[in-house]
């Protein structure tokens, strides 16, 4: 049993530092594997015959062991990172003066210690690949079925799938976050290498490379960020597909956090702009953590799992939002299915066009979320908070007075207004969520600046802002008064 003395003597940052060593090693070993792939390819190009085949088989075996080592190192990083989080949470709880908090914190710390030790003890499993031929669920399978399938497999089968079917696995909702993260990290450097090879091909043919340059820069930034050994938070890469411009990254483990918010961004979001979206998610997580009570921990997911409109013209229709509704619903459902322990308090936040996506998803299917937050919304495709499928008193909305999104009116409405009278509450994609007729809980985000309308529209998640503080309260399940 852990004691108060040992708990207080253990610095979470020191545990994070050790996790960082494992993270850096995992990334480095993954790169060695990719280097070995390149060597095998070059050999195949200049050598053929039985000896070459023998050589290739030998190198392939080494490659498999490097992937196993990458999996083991990533798994150790995850276990240690979550252990550091648990230490931080339980130390706060010890400082809490409410009755029974010390005993509760020691129980939590003991459980976290046992969990981390168990996960670390499984390192050897990564090197016992099974030869079972496993059939994966098809993409789009409902998360409960995926989870049911995954739960029936052994740890060795999990390890084998993560190392051999990583790209297929990370795209499946219903797979636990730690497995998806491990699988995604297997592919991270190789995806970057592939993009660079494609770019070189385009450049050699004299074709424009600007789009690929931006994707490469975005992917480089993700790689740098999620592999940063000095990071104060552990990022979970839940899906990453450079070819489809998709990235889903969670700040913190969504399967083990008590409060989870999924953030959907809007116009222009995607791989090249992931850094800004990850910054926003990190700020939201920090605000949620600041508002959280003793024993709570918060994860924030940047969900860039849809074809976000690239231009204002693209953003004039709801087709992107409606297409995104199903994958978003599947993702959020998968998150609820794979969560460990007590169900998490789940929130879904849509920003700008992302609020239209959130509205389209929540308005068309049941989402297992407690709170929905619509920030700077041009309309959520529904006319009333009650149409979003949750208790309308848990639907939140904010738009700064000077935010130009308030001017997003459909010209067809203008024509109709001339005939039937002005409807000031109607925005481009439905009733303004901050209007009284929508029926959401409206919270203040200040007036913004009339002189800097773009900065006003993009400033909701800036540290120190009223909007971020209120969002943090909601994410932590402590709704603003």
């Amino acid at each position, binding site marked *: 049993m852990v004691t108060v003395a040992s708990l207080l003597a253990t610095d979470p940052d020191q545990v994070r530092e050790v996790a960082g060593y494992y993270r850096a090693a995992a990334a480095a070993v993954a790169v060695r594997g990719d280097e070995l792939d390149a060597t095998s390819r070059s050999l195949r190009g200049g050598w053929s*015959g039985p000896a070459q085949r023998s050589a290739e088989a030998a190198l392939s075996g080494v490659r498999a062991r490097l992937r196993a080592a990458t999996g083991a190192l990533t798994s150790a990083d995850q276990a240690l990172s979550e252990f550091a989080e648990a230490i931080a949470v339980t130390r706060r709880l010890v400082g809490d003066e409410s009755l029974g908090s010390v005993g509760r914190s020691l129980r939590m710390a003991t459980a976290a210690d046992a969990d981390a030790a168990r996960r670390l003890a499984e390192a050897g499993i990564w090197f016992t690949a099974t030869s079972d031929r496993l059939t994966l669920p098809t993409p789009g399978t409902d998360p409960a079925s995926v989870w049911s399938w995954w739960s029936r497999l052994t740890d060795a089968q999990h390890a084998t799938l993560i190392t051999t079917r990583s790209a297929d696995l990370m795209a499946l909702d219903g797979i636990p976050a730690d497995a998806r993260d491990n699988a995604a990290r297997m592919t991270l450097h190789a995806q970057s290498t592939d993009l660079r090879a494609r770019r070189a091909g385009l450049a050699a043919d004299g074709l424009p490379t600007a789009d690929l340059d931006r994707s490469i820069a975005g992917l480089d930034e993700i790689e740098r960020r999620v592999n940063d050994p000095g990071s104060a938070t552990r990022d979970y890469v839940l899906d990453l597909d450079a070819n489809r411009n998709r990235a889903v990254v969670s700040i913190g483990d969504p399967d083990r956090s008590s409060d989870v918010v999924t953030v959907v961004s809007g116009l222009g979001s995607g791989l090249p702009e992931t850094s800004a979206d990850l910054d926003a998610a990190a700020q939201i997580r920090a605000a949620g953590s600041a508002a959280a009570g003793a024993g709570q921990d918060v994860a924030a997911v940047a969900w860039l799992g849809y074809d976000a409109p690239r231009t204002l013209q693209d953003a004039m229709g709801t087709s992107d939002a409606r297409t995104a509704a199903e994958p978003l619903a599947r993702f959020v459902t998968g998150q609820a299915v794979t969560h460990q322990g007590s169900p998490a308090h789940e929130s879904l936040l849509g920003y700008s066009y992302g609020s239209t996506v959130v509205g389209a998803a929540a308005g068309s299917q049941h989402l297992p979320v407690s709170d929905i937050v619509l920030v700077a919304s041009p309309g959520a495709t529904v006319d009333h908070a009650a149409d979003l499928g949750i208790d309308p008193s848990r639907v939140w909305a904010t738009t700064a007075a000077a935010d130009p999104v308030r001017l997003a009116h459909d010209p067809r409405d203008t024509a109709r207004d001339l005939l039937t009278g002005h409807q000031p509450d109607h925005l481009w994609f439905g009733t303004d969520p901050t209007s009284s007729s929508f029926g959401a809980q409206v919270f203040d985000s200040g007036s913004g600046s009339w002189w800097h309308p773009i900065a006003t529209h993009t400033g909701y998640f800036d540290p120190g802002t009223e909007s971020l503080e209120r969002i943090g309260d909601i994410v932590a399940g402590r709704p603003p008064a």
Partner: protein
Amino acid sequence: MTVALDELRAAAADLHAIAIRLRADVAAFEYASIADGWATATATRRCGSTVAGRLTAVIRDLEQDRAALDEAAAAYVAADDRAIRRMPGAAARSW
């Protein structure tokens, strides 16, 4: 059968370079552990030792493969045209 000796030698050099970098990767995490007093501390040391041991074996195999590639390249150089056509089996033995 085709043989590009430059590719073979370059691949051998690559394997050696990968092995050297891998050795540095192992050194970076092998002894990292948290303070005693937790089951996690012991488990971290064991995990580090397990993975480091596996990677050390990989490094050894990479160096053996490098040597085999160098041997194969040398065998191809030593043989005349007719012998090269018979080489695959001989080179395979070096694997």
